[in-house]
């Protein structure tokens, strides 16, 4: 170990992974439906995409997690985004490319990707 920079480099490399175990700073939650319906529709690569992106960028305030069936199997893969203080946002028919766009526009810059949203009449009560 020659310098603090080397130490810092190791830390940054590992930190994205370690943040996964930190419960204190996690604010925004990205929740992927991973029931049989979701998995069959391709939720797993979506989950992995989100998880990778968040860790690559070393974001400490976003937690990527999974949930069961929400009952709207025909819209799977479904991704819910919960930003504190804002209504729940539900994206449907997701795939890894769409996930990347949601990550870049919504999670990084706060702009909801309108075209992937669930139809108005299906939105959960809390979002209206």
């Amino acid at each position: 170990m020659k310098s603090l920079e080397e130490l810092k480099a190791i830390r940054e490399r590992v930190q994205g992974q370690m943040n996964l175990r930190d419960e204190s700073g996690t604010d925004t939650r990205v929740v992927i439906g991973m029931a049989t319906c979701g998995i069959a529709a391709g939720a797993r690569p979506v989950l992995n995409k989100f998880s990778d992106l968040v860790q690559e960028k070393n974001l400490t305030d976003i937690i990527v997690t999974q949930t069961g069936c929400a009952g709207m199997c025909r819209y799977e893969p479904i991704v819910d985004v919960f930003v504190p203080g804002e209504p729940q946002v539900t994206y449907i028919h997701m795939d890894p490319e769409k996930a990347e766009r949601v990550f870049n526009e919504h999670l990084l810059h706060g702009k909801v990707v309108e075209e992937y949203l669930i139809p108005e009449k299906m939105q959960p009560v809390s979002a209206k």
Partner: protein
Amino acid sequence: MFRAHVLVCGGTGCVSSGSAKLIDLFKEEIEKQGLKDEVAVVQTGCHGLCAMGPIVVVYPDATFYAMVKEENVSEIVEEHLLKGRVVSHLVYKEESDAGENVKSLNDTDFYKKQTRVALRNCGVINPENIDEYIGMRGYEALGKVLTEMQPEDVIDTILKSGLRGRGGAGFPTGQKWKLARELVQDGGQKYVCCNADEGDPGAFMDRSVLEGDPHVVLEAMAIAGYAIGASQGYIYVRAEYPIAVERLKIAIGQAKEYGLLGENIFESGFSFDIDLRLGAGAFVCGEETALMTSIEGKRGEPRPRPPFPAVSGLYQRPTILNNVETWANIPQIILNGADWFASMGTEKSKGTKVFALGGKINNTGLVEIPMGTTLREVVEDIGGGVPNGKKFKAAQTGGPSGGCIPAEHFDVPIDYDNLTAIGSMMGSGGLIVMDEDNCMVDIAKFFLEFTVDESCGKCVPCRIGTKRMYEILDRITKGQGTLKDLDRLQELAAHIKDNALCGLGQTAPNPILSTLQYFHDEYVAHVVDKKCPAKVCRGLLTYTIIPEKCRGCTKCARNCPVRCISGTVKEVHTIDQEQCIKCGACMANCPFDAIVKE
């Protein structure tokens, strides 16, 4: 990259309840489900809730599975990791929690009231992977010290933080370092030692830190080496802690490989090395002068102080010796500042303290609380109270050097000075809870038996004095004591306190003195009434058969190992008190509850 981490506790408690096998099974099952690249399995150190082991925590949602069995693994992998459904019937539930609430780790009463400084990484990182330690800001404090701070600044920071020795006596850590730096300045070798010879019955926080976060000790020792001008450190650890020894070896190897130990660390010109020394398990070797004598390869016996180790310690050179838990606080103080640390705790006891909860308590395990927390909060809120609806009687702190705190002091804020004032001491942090079924004379006898066994024999007050005290206690528990014996105990205790050579002897009478003070009635009951109120002391018990209840089934007579119960079938039986050995076998076997002990 992994989207989820499965943390399996690898502390000694969980390993002995089978966690090592779980790790293999999780890996196998995860591979089988094709999740190998998505889910990581990590072995961690102790989570603290040893009573509920083996413990498995799944991140990112911090789902807390308790008492996981081998056959549960496939269900957790399939349901939770594959399908995202928490396996609620395996999730840890608290006694107070009547509902089916699934709580994450930090929401449980057990963790919510804790403040984790020394244990911050235990149960969170993989102790065998230096990268994970670095990912939690590990070795940053060492880097900061070597590149930005003068040795004097380091000592000042530790002094200002108010950190006191966690081994029990509570000597200010900064003061120790300052003396070791300033008293001898001849440019010769100085030493930094870590006391990991945890010997108090019931205390296991040092083991857990070494098993769960070994690098923190290495980092802290290197910081101290820089502060006092030492280039060599020794960790004296019990050979009975095989997992701790193994992980320390791994950690030292990794730190050397990364250049965080060895020559010219961070190109600062500072070099520091650490070696392990294994202790053979003598209690006295936890005493600082005996420990250093033992490192030198001699018989572990204490010597009088002064000279203090800061002037003449290991190999007659200036030495500092701190306990594992003390070391675990150092990097955090450097990183967060003295004021941050001093903001926790009471006026004279800063920071947090780790306690090992044991005895008659629901949540057996390790807890870390800010100084000044009351005993009531520790026992009732965090510890989950006394099991089976029994009444709290006393808490024993400080092991064989401490005393018993009765229920009347339940609301005293725990810190060094308060505990001493009520006749106990902080000690290394063992906290044994006792309920109405514990006999206080018997407890005092238990601890005295321990000190008699462990006395090194070098000085007379300890070698002979503790033996005499033990004999008196033994007489009392057999119903042969007199009131005069109680006075003699007081007198002997005072002599031993004043005249013993080292801390072990000086504090050995404490268990007797504190029980005499708070539970005098119980002693009197033993010597005057010849009764043991808690029904523990065998010599004072009588087993009798209630004639009205006895149906003459002969079961007691058949189970009596000394055949002292007589009677024929369908007739009332009687116990021959002369021959009875009070084993209780008859009472345990009576189907009609016809036998009582008094």
